C-alpha cells in the first residue's frame, strides 16, 4: 500500500532544475532514506511534499488523495510531520511549550502534558522542561525538533538531517528511536551519516542533480556503481 507518491515532480529556480521529474513511491510503514550529495535537491524535494515549496510541475498524492494544491498546514493536518534541517524551534519558549504546541493540534488539557513528557522521554531529552529552548545545545535543539515531530504521532514523519550535531551516544539512541517509531509511522529520512542510513533504512533513494539516480535496499545501493561514482566517490 502506497502512502505517498509523486509523479513528475519538478522545481526550477530561475532556469536551474533543483528537482527534475521525480516519480517517487513510499509504501506504508517503510523507513526510507533519501541521500545524495549537497545540492542534489533533497530538501527542495521534501519541501514540495509538505507544502513549503511550490512545485513547478507534477503531483503529490498522500493516502490516495491529491494534495498538490493543499497549503502546508492542511497537509500537516492530514498526518505529515516535518522537522527542519536548520533547527527551527521556538527559542524564547520553554522546551515543554515547544512540544506542547505540536501536541495541541490533536490533544487538549492534561493529555498534552502526558504526551509532551512521553515525547521528550522517547527522544532522550532530559533537560528541565521549563528551561528555554535557546538554552539547549545545538544537538539538543535537534532532539527537541524531533520530539516536536514525534509528539504529533504522524502517519508520515519527514526528518531532515536529524543527527547533525548529535554526539555518538545520541546517534545510537536515535537509531533505536527510528526503529521504534517505524512500528507506527512511515519515515522519510534525509541523512548524511551513512551508518545511520545503512542501519535504519528499509529502502534508499539516491538523488543526484535533482533526479533519482538509484533506488534499492541498503545492500543494493552500496553495490551500485553509478551511486559510487556520483556520491561515494569510490567508483
Amino acid at each position, binding site marked *: 500500500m502506497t502512502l505517498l507518491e509523486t509523479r513528475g515532480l519538478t522545481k526550477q529556480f530561475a532556469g536551474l532544475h533543483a528537482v527534475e521529474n521525480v516519480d517517487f513511491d513510499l509504501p506504508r510503514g517503510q523507513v526510507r532514506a533519501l541521500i545524495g550529495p549537497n545540492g542534489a535537491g533533497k530538501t527542495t524535494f521534501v519541501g514540495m511534499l*509538505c507544502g*513549503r515549496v511550490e512545485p513547478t510541475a507534477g503531483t503529490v498524492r498522500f493516502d490516495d488523495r491529491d494534495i498538490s494544491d493543499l497549503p*502546508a*498546514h492542511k497537509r*500537516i*493536518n492530514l498526518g505529515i510531520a*516535518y522537522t*527542519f534541517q536548520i533547527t*527551527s*524551534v*521556538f*527559542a*524564547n*519558549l520553554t522546551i515543554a*511549550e515547544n512540544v*506542547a*504546541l*505540536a501536541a*495541541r*493540534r490533536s490533544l*487538549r488539557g492534561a493529555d498534552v502534558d502526558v504526551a509532551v513528557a512521553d515525547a521528550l522521554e522517547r527522544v532522550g531529552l532530559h533537560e528541565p522542561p521549563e528551561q528555554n529552548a535557546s538554552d539547549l545545545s545545538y544537538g539538543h535543539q535537534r532532539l527537541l525538533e524531533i520530539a*516536536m515531530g514525534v509528539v*504529533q504521532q504522524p502517519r508520515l514523519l519527514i526528518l531532515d538531517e536529524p543527527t547533525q550535531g548529535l554526539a555518538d551516544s545520541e546517534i545510537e539512541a536515535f537509531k533505536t528511536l527510528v526503529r521504534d517509531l517505524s512500528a507506527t509511522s512511515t519515515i522519510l529520512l534525509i541523512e548524511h551519516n551513512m551508518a545511520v542510513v545503512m542501519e535504519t533504512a528499509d529502502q534508499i533513494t539516491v538523488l543526484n542533480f535533482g533526479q533519482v539516480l538509484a533506488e534499492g535496499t541498503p545492500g543494493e545501493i552500496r553495490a551500485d556503481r553509478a551511486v559510487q561514482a556520483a556520491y561515494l566517490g569510490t567508483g
Partner: protein
Amino acid sequence: MSDRTKTLILHAGLLVLLFVLQFLLPAYHHGNLARIMVLASYAIGFNILFGYTGLLSLGHALFFAAGMYGMGLAIRHLGLSPSAALLCGLAAGVAISTIAGLLALRTVGVGFMIVTLMFAQAGYLTLLYFGEYTRGDEGFVIQQAERILWGLDLSDPTNRYFAAFALFALCLLLTLWLVRAPFGKVLVAIRENEERARMLGYDVFAHKLGAVVLSGTLSAMAGAVYGLLFGYVGASFASVQYSIFPLLWVLLGGAGTVLGPFIGTLFMFYLIDLSSGVTTAYMLIAGVVLVALTLFAPQGLVGEIRKRFWRGLP
C-alpha cells in the same frame, strides 16, 4: 506558591485596588484614573496584536474611532439608547477590523505597518469628508440625557469610574484568559517563529485574522465607551496621534505582558500631567524620560520585572 496562584493574586489585587481607590481618591485623580482605565483598555486591545502576535499596526485609531463613531452616530442620527449604541460601536469594530485584517494581512512586516497606517488615514479623511454627519474636526457632544445607561447617569463621576473599571476589568481578564488559551499560545508561537507554527499545522492566516479582529474589537469597545463616558465624539480620535499613543503606552509598560498596557498608560498620563505642572516645556521632560526608559528598560516597565524577577509573569 505556584506561578498560577501568584498571577491570580497579582491581577485580582490590581482590580481590587482600583475598585477601592474610587472611594479614596480626590476628585481630580479620580477623574484621571477613569480616563486612564478606558485608554488602557484600548492599549490592551493593541497589545494583543502587537505584543502577543508580533504584528505592528500603525492604524489602530481606525478601530478606536470605528467604535466611537459607531456608538456616537447611532445616538445622534438614529436616536438609539446608549446600550444599543454601544452594540453598534462594537459591530462597527468587528466589521472594520475584519475588512482591514483581510486586506492588510496580505502584506507582512513594513508593508503591514504602511497599509494599516493608510487605512487609518483613509478612515480619518472619510470622517472629515462626511462632515455634515460627523461634524468633522469639531466633533459633537453627546448630551447628558443621552448618556443614561440602564438607569445610571454616566456623566456622574462615580458611575463613570465604575463603568471605566468594568470595561478595564473585562479587558484585563480577557487577556489573562487569552494567554492561557490554546489560541493565545498559537499567537505567541506565530510571533516567535511563523514558519514553524505553519509547519506544525496551524493556519497562520486565520490566527492572525482572529488576532486583528479581537484586537480591533477591543479597541473599538474602548472607543465607544470613551465617547459615552466623556460625552464627546470627534475626528481627532481617528488621527495618527491616536494610532501612536497605544504603541507608546504598550512599549513603555511592556509589550506582551498583561499588565504592561495599564502601567504604560498610567505612567505616560502622569508623566505629562506632572511635568506640565512644573514647566511649559513639559514635552522636553517627557522626552528625556522616554529616552531613558528605552535605554535602560527596553522591555518596558513590566517587561523588565518579568526579565529580572519573575519569569512566569504572563
